[in-house]
């Protein structure tokens, strides 16, 4: 692609210098976050909040010293994995503004040239993003440039030098400025802000180079042979199309949001009953709802995991077959499921994970639409099933599944209704009542109940006797089946119970015993 055709990019970097601290304060809640807090790595403080700073705590101080200064200090061990996860979540959050997002250590990067008009100018967009991050409790410093690397560099520079004014606002609110707009600013950046080993930076400084301008003026091949290819690549990705040099920037991979939602809350064991779960659950679900709206999908299963201090964790799955994106619906289903659940121990943390999604628009159409329900009606029905299933348990809902068998008890089985099976059920219309002389009972006992021999019609008095209240009124109909495995030879009769009900009984001809198998309800 020719350079003239290439659109000027505009990258907004949101540097989060206090990411671990912000995360900790978020977990503790606004009130507790006012107390002195610190993040510790290898027994040294790496992050301290303002309250701790006021007590005289400084970064790189030993933990023992810190405790001596402030006995009430709350500390947390630094966790790289948690930081990365938090950053990824924020990157997914940023995905709502622009499709090109990325992250770097402690930073979010958004390519905003394409969405300036949508958000009515770059300052409004910046304001909106700032407010969004603030409401989540994150402190950020911005940087704006034509490349990711440059924006990131500006943001870090501004973090360290808040008093120095960087005029990075573009002249036109709606159009990304050409690369030359950033040239002077980029060139005065100190070498220390390059992303590389300290040793190399020291080497460059020892060579008398102080700013990026000094580096850009040198021939790139010479620089490359002396200081290695990574430096050249870094310079290239910093400069973009600013210099017509033979820099070849490494292709940058855009962040692709994964379709797994995972979020959690930590409680330090303060929650001991399910009532206390209401608030964190609502928070997690509203996060999920935002995720669902951004991706244009609906969740088909919420999986809640309850982690305890000294107890194996519990998992609770909420199945959802209706396509729901709204908070109230998800909340309601979760609450129903929680009614039959109690915490096994004080809760350490609660995680919500969603891995299964369904698309909203691409609803699959049945091949024979006349045989299935209208989609709207089906969705209502699914919503009902969700409610019932989450409160009553998985086995409470069944439908009958018919099979082509001879023995009545094998002719049907109970099929548990799940969101998946309900889609497969089509309801063929039965046109007419089949005209048959067969009279079958409406109720079937799952297992035949052994009984004593009923009165047979040969009995002259027809009176109910003491031994059996049943009197045969019709029969027999013989079923002879399963000769290939466990032979079943039965004579079926209709018998009248002396309380007025009619029963379906049979005599097993192989052992001569009588069984009650159904009722004419």
């Amino acid at each position: 692609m020719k350079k003239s055709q290439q659109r000027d990019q505009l990258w907004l970097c949101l540097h989060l210098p206090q990411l671990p601290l912000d995360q900790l304060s978020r977990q503790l809640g606004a009130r507790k976050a006012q107390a002195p807090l610190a993040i510790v790595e290898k027994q040294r403080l790496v992050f301290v909040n303002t309250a701790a700073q006021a007590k005289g705590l400084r970064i790189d101080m030993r933990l023992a010293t810190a405790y001596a200064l402030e006995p009430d200090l709350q500390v947390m061990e630094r966790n790289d994995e948690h930081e990365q996860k938090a950053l990824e979540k924020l990157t997914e959050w940023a995905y709502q503004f622009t499709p090109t997002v990325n992250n770097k250590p402690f930073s979010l990067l958004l390519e905003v040239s394409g969405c300036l008009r949508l958000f009515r100018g770059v300052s409004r967009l910046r304001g909106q993003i700032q407010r969004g991050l603030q409401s989540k409790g994150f402190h950020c410093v911005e940087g704006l440039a034509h490349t990711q690397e440059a924006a990131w560099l500006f943001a870090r520079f501004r973090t360290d030098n808040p008093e120095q004014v960087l005029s990075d606002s573009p002249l036109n609110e709606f159009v990304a400025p050409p690369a030359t707009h950033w040239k002077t600013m980029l060139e005065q950046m100190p070498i220390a802000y390059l992303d590389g080993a300290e040793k190399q930076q020291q080497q460059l400084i020892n060579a008398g180079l102080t700013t990026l301008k000094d580096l850009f003026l040198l021939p790139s091949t010479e620089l490359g042979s002396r200081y290695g290819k990574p430096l050249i690549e870094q310079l290239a990705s910093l400069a973009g199309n600013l210099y017509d040099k033979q820099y070849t920037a490494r292709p940058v991979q855009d962040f692709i949001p994964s379709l797994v939602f995972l979020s959690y809350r930590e409680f330090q064991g303060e929650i001991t009953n399910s009532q206390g779960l209401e608030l964190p659950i609502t928070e997690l679900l509203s996060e999920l709802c935002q995720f669902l709206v951004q991706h244009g999908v609906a969740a088909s299963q919420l999986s809640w995991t309850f982690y305890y201090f000294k107890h194996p964790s519990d998992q609770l799955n909420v199945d959802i077959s209706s396509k729901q994106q709204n908070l109230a619906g998800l909340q309601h289903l979760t609450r129903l499921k929680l009614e039959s659940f109690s915490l096994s121990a004080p809760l350490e943390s609660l995680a919500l994970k969603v891995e299964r999604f369904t698309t909203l628009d691409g609803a699959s159409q049945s091949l024979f639409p006349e045989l299935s329900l209208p989609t709207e009606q089906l969705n209502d029905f699914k919503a009902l099933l969700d409610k019932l299933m989450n409160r009553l348990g998985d086995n409470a809902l069944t439908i009958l599944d018919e099979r082509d068998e001879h023995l009545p008890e094998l002719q049907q089985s109970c099929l548990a209704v799940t969101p998946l099976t309900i889609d497969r059920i089509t309801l063929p219309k039965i046109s007419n009542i089949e005209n048959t002389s067969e009279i079958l009972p409406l109720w079937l006992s799952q297992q035949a109940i052994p009984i004593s021999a009923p009165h047979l019609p040969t009995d002259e008095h027809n009176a109910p006797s003491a031994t059996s209240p049943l009197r045969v009124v019709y029969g027999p109909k013989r079923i002879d089946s399963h000769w290939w495995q466990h032979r079943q030879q039965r004579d079926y009769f209709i018998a009248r119970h002396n309380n007025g009900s009619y029963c379906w009984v049979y005599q097993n001809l192989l052992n001569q015993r009588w069984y009650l198998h159904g009722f004419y309800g």
Partner: protein
Amino acid sequence: MLMNSELEQLLQLPNVWQASRLKRRTTVLSTGYTPLDKALHDGGWPDSATTELLLPHVGIGELRLLIPALRKVQQQRPWVAFISPPYLPFASAVRLLGLNPQGVLLITPRDEREQLWSAEQVLQSGCCSAVINWAVTTQLDSRQLRRLQQAAHRGQCWHTLVRHRSQAKQPSPSALRLSLQSEPQGLLQLNILKQRGGWSGQQVKLALTPDLTKLQTLSTFQLPLPLVQLQHNTAAVSDTSSSIKSNNVIPISTP
């Protein structure tokens, strides 16, 4: 004459309730049995309301009584819910009677509270064309009955509540109450205990379950039965018979 004019004046007052002025409901479901339709003021099962069937024990033809109407409503909305049924419906028999067994949703709640809750949910969702709720062993108070009745009204759902005969004396907000009693020769005696829109007390006899006119002739056939009396099953007999008499519901065991 003076008396009459006073009566006239009294009747003119707006706060004097007269059963005959009550608006006739527009939507009813034909029961499929002409004598019963005639006995009911509205000419059928009250749609969007609760019908109570009061029985001495389950299995005397109460399901068969509902089948013709169920068949009709299933053509509009294919789902029919059975809440805590006493046994499993026999799919082949259901199909023979023209009802689609796959459209029957069986709900087996664990306790009374869940049963009422699920009945209310299903009724007011309006997804099912009919809800049959077996509450033979449960005692429902009038507040619970009213809630069910209101849920049926909201969801425009035909609700049938199967209850024990002993609950007949309890006042109930249900739109229609029938007491069922099986008679010899397979007849089912229906007493209308209460119906909306007028007086009650009608009695109807219906030939139900199974078609005995056919059966009686068949039963005279000589049966090729080896008449063996069994001794060791007597214990089982008393069990079965007592379970039927005492209206205990044999729970459905789902695989």
